[in-house]
């Protein structure tokens, strides 16, 4: 066990953790932020995606020690009022069904939109193929990412 400090959503969390512990469980069990989900534990499903210094990472296979000194952003910290363009588009299209995978879907989509503000279908495939949705909301995810891109453009122009 080691004393570490994580910066999650711009807040310092002093924690005592096994440095080998995946970031996922530190976020959930130690910092108590439950929005990031456990799906597979082997980087296959994307339910656990968070941003580490702005990059989308699978927190289930990222050691907590790797996050020390870096900025971690989870779904709870993506926006102050649930109003990131991706969140707004998800609400507008009513993307989620059970909703369990969508923290990860949204975090992946947010990085895509930052990197490619006007993504093609191929860009969406490339960025989102690592996120599984068992309810099968994929067509809506695609539609919502295009809508989020529109919303983002309007915001940056306005």
């Amino acid at each position, binding site marked *: 066990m080691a004393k570490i400090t994580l910066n999650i959503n711009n807040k310092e969390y002093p924690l005592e953790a096994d440095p080998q512990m995946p970031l996922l469980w530190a976020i959930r069990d130690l910092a108590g932020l439950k929005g990031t989900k456990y799906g597979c534990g082997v980087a296959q499903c994307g339910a656990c995606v968070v941003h580490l210094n702005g990059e989308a990472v699978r927190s289930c296979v990222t050691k907590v020690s790797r996050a020390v000194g870096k900025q971690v952003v989870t779904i709870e910290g993506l926006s102050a009022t649930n109003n990131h363009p991706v969140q707004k588009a998800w609400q507008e299209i009513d993307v*989620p069904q059970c909703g369990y*995978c969508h923290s990860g879907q949204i975090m992946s989509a947010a990085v895509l939109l930052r990197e490619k503000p006007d993504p093609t279908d191929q860009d969406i495939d490339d960025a*989102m193929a690592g*996120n599984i949705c068992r309810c099968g*909301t994929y067509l809506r995810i695609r539609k919502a990412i295009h809508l989020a891109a529109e919303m983002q453009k309007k915001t940056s122009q306005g």
Partner: protein
Amino acid sequence: MDNQTLSRRNFLKTSGMTGAVLSLGFYWPGNAKSAKIVNAAEAQNFGVEMNSWVHIDTSGKVTIFDHRAEMGQGSYQAVPQIVAEELEVNLNEINVVFAQGDNKKYGNQVTGGSSTVRGSYKNLLKLSATAREMLIQAAAAKWGVDKAECYAEGGNVIHKPSGKRFHYGELVDAASKLEPPKEVILKKRSDYKLIGKPLRRLDTPLKTNGSAIFGLDKEIPGMMYAAVERNPRLRGKVKSFDDTKTRQIPGVKHVFKVKMGVFNTYREGVAVVADSTWAAIQGKKALKVEWDDTGFEHLDTEEIYKRQREALQTQEGLAFKKQGEPSEIIAKAAKKIDVTYETPYQYHAAMEPLNCVAHYQDDKLEIWGPIQAPEWVQDYISKEMSIPKEKVILNMTFLGGGFGRKAFMDYPHEASVISKEIKAPVQVVWTREDDATQGPFRPGITYRCEGVVSNGAIDAFKVKMAGQNNAHWRGGKKDVPNGSASEGFLKPYMDSIKNLAIMDIPFETPIPTMWWRSVYASTNGFAYESFLDELALEAGKDPLEFRRAHLKEERLHKLIDKMEEVSGWKNRKKGEGFGTAITECFASTVGHVVKVSKAPNGGVKIDQVWVVMDCGWYVNPDTVRAQVEGSVVMGLGAATIHEVKFKDGMAVDSNFSTYQMPRITDIPPIEIHIMENDADAGGVGEPGLPAFAPALTNAIFDLTGKRIRRLPFSLATV
């Protein structure tokens, strides 16, 4: 919006309700089919506890209880949308609370059979209209006017001639003292303001910022975390274990043998309790367990299917339905079709792995979890652990998918046993590997279909199924045919096909099986609808025309008309890759048309899927579409990827690396149409699934001439 489960005692306080409250609920006298609507005083007279379905407080705030699980199918949206319509309140002013498990209060709470709306909408409409009428009556009395001069709108009662108004909060005190009217007039469908509209789901905002509480997110003070290394064989026991290394892992607190119920059998494992999920999982991995696997067969998948095929050739089975002389006609026929269809075992693979929080205390057991069947859990645990049922308190969370698996009692039972042992609250977390390998699964079923056509119509139709019957696991009789042998098959065929037999060959293995989305329709539908395609071809008829000729019911003809219209069916050219199938499931009928073409690099590509859904009365067309989209995606996985394989009595694939899921790159365009009619509500969550696989394989036959009779198959190599 509050998604916590609250007990009635805490409810008034927590929901911020003050002063008088108008509460209405149901009372089911005896086994009456229709509920009686009661207020609190009447409930007391009947000696029943008020189930308090709808509450309005003095601020006008409306709170309703969702009596069913929300696992993606939309009960959290459908129930309030129904209530708001007849109550005349705005949807966004309704607070939704998950009801606790209590079937005495809420009736059947098992979320299964696509029954949430179809099973309760008539009662909910009536209840809401009753509350509205009582509020109108209270307002009219206050004003001293005729109630016919008053109407309700947007949470207010308005006196039409004067324009005077009361908001509901001002009326609840008076209204709560009135006796509910015996009869109320319900709105006509054409007058609906909310029902039938694609309104946004109330739970979506909770699911875009991480605030929805799923079972795995539940935390209670003092809670420990547990992972269990269970016998990898489906009914095995623990012989001995070595926990030396486990106990060296920081955070591990307890290690002990644990036993959970699997229907009427048990499965054993070793529980590792720790102060974090990670430590518990590490501790589980470090265990060395010797298993006792005696007393049951260690089967391989191929052995199962071989036995099914043999049984279909040598046994006649039990008759689910038999009319005319199908066997005689088939025996004498100069030409008959005699084919076998095979469907695999399937894993539910909800994104949220199984988990459950339990807190065993001296005087009660409290459970929080993603649970589809609270009353079954209460009954089972009450019996297994000798706790009175009313002391088993079931709190519902959001479910991260269910698909039938979470209607099972093993995981809450195991969590309860562990909590009792450690004398503390505990959350048991199943790893993905546990979830994927330990069942119950959808049974794999083999079908033998024999038929004769003459003069362009079916002369004899005989199908036999050999596969596990889920009912057997729940104590069902073994000398009766599977009650779901015709699930998926359109009932009117049984009127038009005079010589027909649907037979079930009893078949058992040690593998526990359970409902999987659309249940037997998911396998029957593939067999029966592929077979109909083969019969149509034999008869020289167009597959949809052939079905129409055998379905003498106007509602179905309209569905077929719509399928033809939207897919351009009549203008398709021969061999262009069109296939169709129509199945019935949980009182809804769904037709699929699939178009395929040859993929540039070999194999087949799905160009388009058209789905026509006839679910009768429905609440929210966007929810219906979402459920059908999801059903197609799940059906696609089941048809082209998924099979749970067993080797030496163990499930082989343990994670998404080998049990691969359809991904965003795999999804064809899906166009959905909903039939408009006044028929009673049918199911929505499951009926969109079964017809997809046969429509796809029928389309592949149309394109390539290759008949696929075994699932899954690979689109890339077909």
